[in-house]
């Protein structure tokens, strides 16, 4: 028996799917099922159009040149808001992480502000800054600010005391200590903060554009809703997912390059 079953086992035609493709399996199956259900008329096309219809819609908007305008303005808002939020968070986070005095004065206020849901600022921002770009970029910047600030601050506070002592033994100046010890030691936490911040940036750009915009992917969402075109809505969602994933992958790649020295489980 065993002599029969052995060769059969070794000539088994297919092995497990490569790890890099495993994540694709479920989404592809879902899209195929969705397409089939739509084609068979089991899903109402005015509620959930088929994937091919969505793709067609994207191509149509792209061909008219509108797509690039919408994507462009949304990207612009995210990048600008992310930049401003990160800049302010970096300055304040470095300050409150490094200096106990600054921490005592600033951190309680910032922690209190953090507890306000960022969307709650929208009416005030619109009142102060108008309904155009400033209020949108500010909202995104506020969203980006907190994760970057928190991660940087706690990252600095969590720097291994012994490594700081090494710096002191070799009589590093304050500036050298920051550059040679604190900066590299804080980098992992800071990059996690940036990635979280970027994710929130994308979230808040949708919120900002839903509130009132004449351009951008968020506007496209609302436009699809008011004109009763679900394909446009889904197309916008897909584009948001795509752009979010792309920017996050970019940041993730940068992180991995900068943190090559880490001895982590995932690095293997």
């Amino acid at each position, binding site marked *: 028996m065993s002599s029969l079953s052995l060769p059969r086992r070794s000539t088994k035609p297919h092995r497990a799917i490569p790890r890099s493709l495993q994540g694709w399996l479920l989404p592809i199956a879902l899209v195929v099922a969705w397409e089939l259900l739509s084609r068979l008329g089991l899903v109402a096309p005015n509620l959930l159009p088929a994937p091919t219809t969505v793709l067609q819609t994207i191509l149509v908007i792209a061909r008219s040149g509108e797509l690039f305008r919408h994507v462009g303005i949304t990207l612009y808002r995210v990048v600008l808001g992310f930049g401003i939020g990160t800049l302010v968070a970096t300055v304040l986070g470095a300050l409150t992480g490094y200096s106990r005095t600054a921490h005592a004065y600033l951190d309680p206020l910032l922690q209190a502000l953090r507890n306000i849901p960022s969307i709650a600022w929208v009416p005030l921002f619109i009142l102060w800054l108008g309904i155009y770009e400033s209020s949108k970029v500010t909202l995104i910047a506020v969203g980006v600010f907190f994760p970057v600030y928190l991660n940087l601050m706690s990252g600095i506070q969590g720097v291994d005391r*012994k490594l700081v002592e090494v710096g002191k033994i070799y009589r590093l100046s304050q500036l050298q200590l920051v550059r040679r010890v604190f900066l*590299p030691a804080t980098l992992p936490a800071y990059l996690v903060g940036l990635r979280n911040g970027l994710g929130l940036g994308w979230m808040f750009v949708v919120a900002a554009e839903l509130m009132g915009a004449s351009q951008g992917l968020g506007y496209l969402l609302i436009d699809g809703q008011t004109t009763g075109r679900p394909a446009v809505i889904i197309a916008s969602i897909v584009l948001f997912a795509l752009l979010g994933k792309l920017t996050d992958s970019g940041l993730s790649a940068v992180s991995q390059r900068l943190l090559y020295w880490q*001895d982590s489980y995932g690095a293997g």
Partner: protein
Amino acid sequence: MSFSSRTVSPATSQSPSLSQDVVVALRDINLHFGNGAQQVEALRSINLDLVAGDFVCVLGSSGCGKTSLLRVLAGYQPPTAGAVYIDGKSHSAPNAAVGVVFQRPNLLPWLSIADNVGFGPKMQGEPDFTLRQRVAHYLDLVGLSDASQRLPHQLSGGMQQRAAIARTLAANPRVVLMDEPFGALDALTRESMQLHLRKIWQQTQKTIFFITHDVEEALILATRIVVMHAHPGRIVQQIPNPFRDVLDHMSTTELRTMPEFVRLRQQLIAGIHSVESG
């Protein structure tokens, strides 16, 4: 008891500035923590001299104040009374004259081994050319030339500690303090590290102040052994190590079987644990 072996350090009775040889002089060091009823006397009237090329091992059970003594000597901890002199000059804050090797290597994880070894001199602005030579020299001294471009986490614990020793030596201190540097290593690695350190010491003729609770380690490494007791932390015994040169022509296995070695080892172990004060 503690006065019987003073002849080993010739300058004890003189002012530290009068003797050329004395690298480190500890004078009447007292150290108290806390105050009132909670006050702890960590160190009481510590007097100790290290002459150039001395390898002093401080033996004591945990809590006897040997690490407090090292911290005072390094300049991390100001003593309540007394003073530390290095080359006759008062020493009260960490500086380049004193190098410290801790129980953990504390290498900067983002720098290669070579960059870690050269870290101190580089921060002091040493030009690249001489820095590279210096790093190569000390990597060679600790046997890590082949690992120079690797990252700390890619090295074994023993190799990391050797890199830490090279880093300390590369800053060219007058005296090197070591706080149980091999305490975190396994027994086999520890013994090879001890022999390695002995060679490094013979080649560099550094003055070394070495803390341990391992009597055999002290007998393998030291030129002089200092025994401390706790409550309050104080020196109860100072003896020259009679086996200081034996390992030049004998293996550690042979050394361990010498009756004199076994006897002194037993004496020291008893000495560490005896409660009555000297």
